[in-house]
């Protein structure tokens, strides 16, 4: 296959900035490739050729035990083919004979009826190229697609379903008589830019007896907590009197999310977890916001002093510009995020509650920072530098100015185990002479700087002497930050390769922690080949997996050490062409 064809077929992409699991789970179910590519199969069908299989058969199996799954639904994406498996997990689809193209149609001048007939024949002759399967008790998302190529009618298609995992248990509220429901929150460990991050995965309001059940979970690492709840037992709940409430608690008994235990949930496992929230006296809290304006909407986060995490909440009284609510004794941080019109601002305040109403000093909102970034292009090959003609005459002059396209996107990804997860993205500066970008409304915090280039690669990203390819960008409250200087080069390495004895799989380039490399990933074609270009010079560990690895914590030195015996290490220099042969890592587990 010619290199250009490879390029066309291989799906190469940089790791997207924000990886959302929901994007994966939006598509349903395990899928199985029956034969060839969709395009090839359709071409065959439409052409009416006789080598198209007249039937397919297969089995649906439990991925964990490899036992057959009876009464599972197997269906084609267009829902024209569907059946339930038998007691041995077997299914079969018989395809109707292909409808040949009538001779007269080929010769006749095409009109609407001919077009319609062709359309119907195409539908009739279309063969499903893969199937979905589902059954209660098994996961409905295809997190680990399995593929089986069917060359002939005889091959058996194996569809693997992952048994669901569950986290179940009770919230024990003292004094409850089956009349107090409480919200439980389940957080899942996700990875962003190779770094651990906890995202709210599900919530479940308990049944009246305190039971909660999270079902249809994927295997992974979770944290579990209960929400705040006012104790309305009439015995102690007197209007205007002392309030009591159940403070957030995190499995197994932590009051602070950051020190909560993690639940390692295996495939098909059921984890039993109980929560026992503690009843505390709650005291009124009032914090004025000094410089809020009426048209601003304010969102608040409250967490134990300096430890961002979920659980506590306070309200905002916009009429009086007052943060209001109640909290138990403790030291807290409140974070206010104000939006209104174009401007956004942020404020932080630490305060304590000590056995009585807390009237903390006022919180001051400070406008968020705008960062600028400049892009310098160091392109070697003349033809590779994409140029656009500036069609607007400059200063009435008739000659067109040759101008480089600013085709660089800078994204600031917040770092932190538990953050708002809100990324800040760059915008081009209008009428800029020097390819400048601006990143407006950057909240104070630590960020990983992610640079996507339309061409080439970001060879260096520096701000005030800090190498942002390797180190975090720290943005202070209202502080001015040095501009980000980006250098784009076009002399990255080209790596092509093949994963042995593999069909479609996923290849990851993990940069050496100390080196100059940058994370890259690629999906292979059907025959296991892949091609990646503009790879920044550096040292990489290259790994190939059957299934996508969304949890590669490559920024974590310890995780990287565990991978030391795996894959292949390469070093690429500028402009180098490298060829790799990789072995697939069995089991698909990078951890």
């Amino acid at each position, binding site marked *: 296959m010619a290199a250009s064809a490879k390029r066309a077929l291989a799906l190469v992409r940089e790791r997207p900035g924000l990886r959302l699991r929901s994007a994966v789970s939006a598509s349903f179910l395990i899928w199985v490739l029956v034969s060839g590519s969709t395009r090839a199969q359709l071409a065959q069908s439409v052409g009416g050729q006789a080598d198209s299989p007249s039937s397919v058969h297969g089995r649906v199996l439990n991925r964990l035990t490899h036992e057959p799954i009876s009464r599972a639904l197997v269906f084609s994406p267009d829902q*024209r083919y*569907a059946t339930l498996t038998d007691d041995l997990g077997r299914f079969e689809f018989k395809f109707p004979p292909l409808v040949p193209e009538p001779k007269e149609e080929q010769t006749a001048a095409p009109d609407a009826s001919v077009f319609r007939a062709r359309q119907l024949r195409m539908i009739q002759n279309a063969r499903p190229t893969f199937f979905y399967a589902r059954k209660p008790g098994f996961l409905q998302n295809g997190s680990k697609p399995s593929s089986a190529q069917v060359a002939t009618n005889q091959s058996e298609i194996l569809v693997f379903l992952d048994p669901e995992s569950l986290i179940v248990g009770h919230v024990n509220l003292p004094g409850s008589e089956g*009349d107090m429901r409480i919200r439980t929150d389940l957080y899942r460990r996700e990875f962003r830019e190779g770094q651990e991050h906890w995202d709210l995965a599900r919530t479940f309001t308990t*049944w*009246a007896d305190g039971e909660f059940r999270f*079902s249809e979970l994927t295997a992974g690492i979770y944290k579990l907590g209960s929400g705040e709840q006012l104790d309305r037992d*009439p*015995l102690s709940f007197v209007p205007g009197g002392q309030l009591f409430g159940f403070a957030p608690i995190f499995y197994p008994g932590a009051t602070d999310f950051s020190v909560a235990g993690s639940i390692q949930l295996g495939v098909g496992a059921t984890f039993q977890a109980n929560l026992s929230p503690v009843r505390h006296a709650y005291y009124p809290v009032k914090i004025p916001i000094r410089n809020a304006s009426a048209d601003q909407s304010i969102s608040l986060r409250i967490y134990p002093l300096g430890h961002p995490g979920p659980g506590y909440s306070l309200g905002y009284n916009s009429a009086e510009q007052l943060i209001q609510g109640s909290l138990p004794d403790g030291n807290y941080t409140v974070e206010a995020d104000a939006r209104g019109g174009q401007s956004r601002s942020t404020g932080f305040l630490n305060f304590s509650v000590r056995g009585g109403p807390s009237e903390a000093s006022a919180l001051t909102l400070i406008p968020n920072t705008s960062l600028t970034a400049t892009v310098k292009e160091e392109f070697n090959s003349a033809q590779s530098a994409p140029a656009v003609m500036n069609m607007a005459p400059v200063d009435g002059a008739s000659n067109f100015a040759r101008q480089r396209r600013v085709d660089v996107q800078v994204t600031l990804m917040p770092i932190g185990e538990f953050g708002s997860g809100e990324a800040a993205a760059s915008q081009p500066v209008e009428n800029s002479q020097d390819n400048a970008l601006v990143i407006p409304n950057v909240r104070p915090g630590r960020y990983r700087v992610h640079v996507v280039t339309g061409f080439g690669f970001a060879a260096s990203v520096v701000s005030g002497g800090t190498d942002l390819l390797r180190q975090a960008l720290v943005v202070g409250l209202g502080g001015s930050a040095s501009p980000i200087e980006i250098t784009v080069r076009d002399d990255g390495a080209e790596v092509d390769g093949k994963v042995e004895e593999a069909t479609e799989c996923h290849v990851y380039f993990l940069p050496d922690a100390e080196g100059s490399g940058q994370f890259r990933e690629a999906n292979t074609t059907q025959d296991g080949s892949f091609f990646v270009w503009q790879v920044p010079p550096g040292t990489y560990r290259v790994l190939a997996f059957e299934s996508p690895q969304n949890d590669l914590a490559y920024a974590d030195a310890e995780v990287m050490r565990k991978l030391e015996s795996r894959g292949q290490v390469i070093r690429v220099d500028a402009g180098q062409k490298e060829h790799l042969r990789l072995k697939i890592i069995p089991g698909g587990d990078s951890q």
Partner: protein
Amino acid sequence: MTLPARTCRMVLAILGIALVRLSGARTAQTQNPPPQDASRSGQTFKIAGTVVSATTGAPLSQARISIGETRDRGRAISMVTSEDGHFEFSQLKPGKYSLQGAKRGFISSAYEQHEQFSTAIVTGQEFSTENLVLRLTPMALITGHVTDEFGEPVRSAQVTLYLENHGGGMTRILRFSNSQSDDRGFYDFSLLRPGKYYISVTAKPWYAIHPTTASDSGDRPASQVSPALDVAYPTTYYSGATEADSATPIEVKGGDRLEIDIHVNPVPALHLIFRIPEPEPDRPNNNFTMPVLQKHVFDSVESVQTDGMNSVAPGVFELTGVPPGRYTVRTKNADSGQLEQSADVDLARDGQELNESRGESLGSLKLSLKMPGDEPLPKQYGVGLQDSRRRMVAFRQGDPSGQFSFEDLPPGKYAILVGAQTAYSVVRTTSPSGSSPGHDVNITSGAAVELTASLAAGVVAVEGVVHKKGKPLAGIMVALVPNDPVAHVDLFRRDQSDFDGTFVLRGLIPGSYTIVAVEDAWGLEWLQPAVLARYVQHGQNLTIGELMRGTVSLPDPIEVQPH
């Protein structure tokens, strides 16, 4: 206790019988003055008694009991009952007190509470207030499992609880709560008060597949899917009915723990056809909406979720996954652009055309409010339309313009209702074609009605006392019945007599009324003309004049009529 100093008294003859007291402070609740000698002597009184379970009669310890003067509810005092369920408040001045009890697992309740009414305790020498019995009803719980035709749990089933409601003088079955089944098919409803409930389950078979089968001209290839998979669960009511009218009621008593399992069974899903007219050069085809299926569920109309709509040919759509049943179909008429709603139609046949179930065009109403006198509009208010079954079919928050617009109204008669801090009623509607008394508006098929609604404010209160055989009686329902009650439902006022037989009816709109007092009348369907007619003939007549303000004291007691 004396009335506010600024209160002046004057006598006005209303039908020659009523005494009117004009009060500058309308918000202050008027009380019957306690015996003068008691307040002079500084004598104090007790409110004491026992809290018991309404179901078992057993005394309830650890219940919180609170009392507050009815004129000053913010300053309640409370205590917790002892082991034997006893409570006692002493050192009380003569006055009128509300008495309330609350305990975990029980429904909080005021003394002799019915709907939102209760009997206030009056302290004084002639009242025995030391052996009261306050009954609290334990809450009930319904749990259950939803299972499919194989006895397997149905996950994510929508379970809906309906409650038969007797409030407001008529019986209606309304949606009360909902729950979603978990992986075991389990659901629950807690904190339930006694009553007659119904439960429905809406779910989809996990294995259901609805291939597009419609054929424009018979040449579409047949689907390869077994009919056993092209199925749907009809909304299923306990105990197995698939239409609300055949549902079995669930009688829930205080403290019940009921297990209500519901089984769903698949039926072949319908494939319905909907056509949109072909676009013409002078009329771009963007003036259509997809049909909406609705179902009458008890006293409400609920939208039905369909599985999907697929284009099967130019201008032809197929609606799949719908269980057969009686529906109303809402479509937009492509010619007029108006929404139309069909009468109930049986959808039972594959390939049935939804366009054929064309019905009456929906109407619209533009409304502007006219306040009494030159009063400004209330700061916070809303306007609602109630249909002939007293279902609130539309509601809009009011704004300073006083202009409202209601679209997509099925033809019929509606009552225009206004909600605000002060009571208001629409007393007259005026349109370009004329003016008519009352709050009703008639929307005919496809009509665009424009109305001005003139409001009257309810600024008069009436107080009095009920007697039976010459003695005041507590806990009696007192109703102010307008003339032509059915047309003036919003003019009704009710109260429950207090310990001393007194009652207050507030927010009265000018007009002619009859006041009746009926024993054991709670739960009565008094909005039925025949029910009321029996009592009205023995009631007391009363007319509230346009210029009246303040509180009217009835000089004669209202005689209690037996149920």
